[in-house]
């Protein structure tokens, strides 16, 4: 069985930041493994540990910088990684759903996995659409927002729970091959062991450009254009208690007494 995991490097913005044109200024961005993808990696590695002859491959669309993030997956048990980048993707800012799905579809067609795992969404742009779009593109079945997965690595059906709103889960059987988008909390992502980190250094990260996967620059064409990026106006009319922590706590205590939360 082969499992392909879409792994994204995301940008996180510091509490205080400045905007430079249509982006947050680079010095206020930290790059990290997408939180949802960490759970997807764990789900894949657990399936690998549960079955014989299970290969786990990650695929990332990202510049060379993202290799640090990719190695985190390799250190946790991913067998090998593919990184797709191309000059045509530089300067595109946030890639559109269609572009990402087309690139991932090209890799999936090369790799021919039985199962594709992706995070539900990315921390930064939170489109939440790539996994299902990819599934439709490659003709795989899918399930979105999976927070429980029961799959025999030799089996042909994945039994999943989909986390709906309001504390309700939907129980669904999904035929393989399939794409599952993985929700946080489905498992407990492992920390990379020192041994894993050492081993990751010798694992393959195969760099590919668009031509390598049978695409060209037209894949980046999108009718969607970012035209504004700004800090939302604060709508806060909160009364903010000020002073030392003790003074702030005293003011809040007085409020809670006034509200009758605590007597006396």
């Amino acid at each position, binding site marked *: 069985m082969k499992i392909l995991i879409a792994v994204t490097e995301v940008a996180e*913005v510091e*509490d205080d930041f400045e905007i430079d044109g249509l982006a947050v200024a680079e010095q206020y961005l930290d790059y990290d493994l997408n939180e949802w993808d960490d759970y997807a990696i764990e789900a894949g590695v657990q399936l690998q540990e549960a079955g014989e002859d299970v290969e786990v491959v990650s695929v990332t669309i990202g510049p060379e910088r993202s290799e640090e993030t990719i190695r985190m997956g390799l250190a946790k048990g991913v067998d090998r990684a593919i990184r797709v980048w191309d000059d045509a993707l530089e300067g595109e800012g946030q890639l559109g759903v269609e572009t990402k799905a087309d690139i991932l579809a090209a890799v999936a067609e090369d790799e021919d996995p039985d199962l594709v795992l992706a995070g539900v969404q990315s921390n*930064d742009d939170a489109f*939440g659409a790539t996994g299902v779009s990819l599934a439709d593109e490659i003709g795989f079945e*899918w399930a979105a927002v999976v927070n429980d997965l029961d799959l025999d690595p030799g089996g042909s059906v994945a039994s999943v729970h989909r986390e709906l709103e309001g504390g309700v889960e939907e*129980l669904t059987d999904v035929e393989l091959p399939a794409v599952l988008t993985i929700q946080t909390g489905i498992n407990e992502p492992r920390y990379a062991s020192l041994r894993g980190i050492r081993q990751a250094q010798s694992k393959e990260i195969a760099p590919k450009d668009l031509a390598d996967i049978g695409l060209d620059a037209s894949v980046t064409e999108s009718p969607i*254009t970012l035209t504004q990026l700004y800090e*939302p106006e604060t709508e806060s009319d909160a009364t903010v208690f000020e002073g030392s*922590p003790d003074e702030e706590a005293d003011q809040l205590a007085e409020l809670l007494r006034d509200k009758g939360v*605590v007597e006396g």
Partner: protein
Amino acid sequence: MTVLAIAEHRRGELRDVSFELATVGRELADATDGDLHLAVIGGEVAEFADRLDREGVDVVHTVDEGEEFNHDVYVQAVTALYDEVEPDTLLMPNSVNGLDYAPAVANRLSLPLVTDAIDIERDGVLSVTREKYGSKVETVVEVDADRAAVTVRPGEWPPAEGTNGAEIRAFDAEIDESAVRSTVTGFQEVGGGDVDISEADVLVSVGRGIEEEENIALVEALADTLDATLSSSRPIVDNGWLPKNRQVGQSGKVVTPDVYIAIGISGAVQHVAGMKGAETIVAINTDPNAPIYDLADYGIVDDLFDVVPALIEAFGGEPPEI
């Protein structure tokens, strides 16, 4: 120009977002003097159609296929209906189920897709406002295409009300059963346990700012001091530091206490969906720009590890060693 919006229902009930879609759909249709079509797929479609006949709705399409949501059926039904209605804008909910079919519909119809819209305008071109970086910035994207699909964040528009006498049309989507490769086998309530946070008058709620599992004891001590109930945002439950029945938010419990004290919680939209009905909201967070302050009535912009022990002491309690 025509707008087509897809209603959502679950376990026999139309979800609120269905009526919100009618509102945003009407706004968009008005911008071009066009028509608003709603569609409801599966379940008691005739009864749903009556309820969806709200002000501003021109046509309600009923697709009588299945009892509950199945994305394979929805994708086929929506694409077939799209071909019939030929709308300029296709609106779907940015719900868990919406995100389980909308991207596939957009892909199949080669429509540009923008998700999680918090504002939409059509002034010549379609402009969609959405958030990025966990609500720290808002972006506007323009869609340079004649037709587009947009998913709409629940809770951002008021629900359409009244009745209107919309035309109700039954639509036969001719579902290909061989293309239905997933089967919904049931539903399961989660949470349970011995505490129902939705019944609490006072909630002390802890979020990611608590940093480590052992630090939860600090907030627990505050809850004990106040005779309040302990709850949390999602990351605390994901980490296994508190059970699922303590989670406040879109996928957890919706709570309406008299007082909600949010400690180390930034106020992500999914969390806010669960607690915005609290009568008085108090936030303790180091980041003055955290979205929780847009909602809070009172705030302390300071380190919770200094403020919470001081608060416990202010009530004569003794903060735990952490």
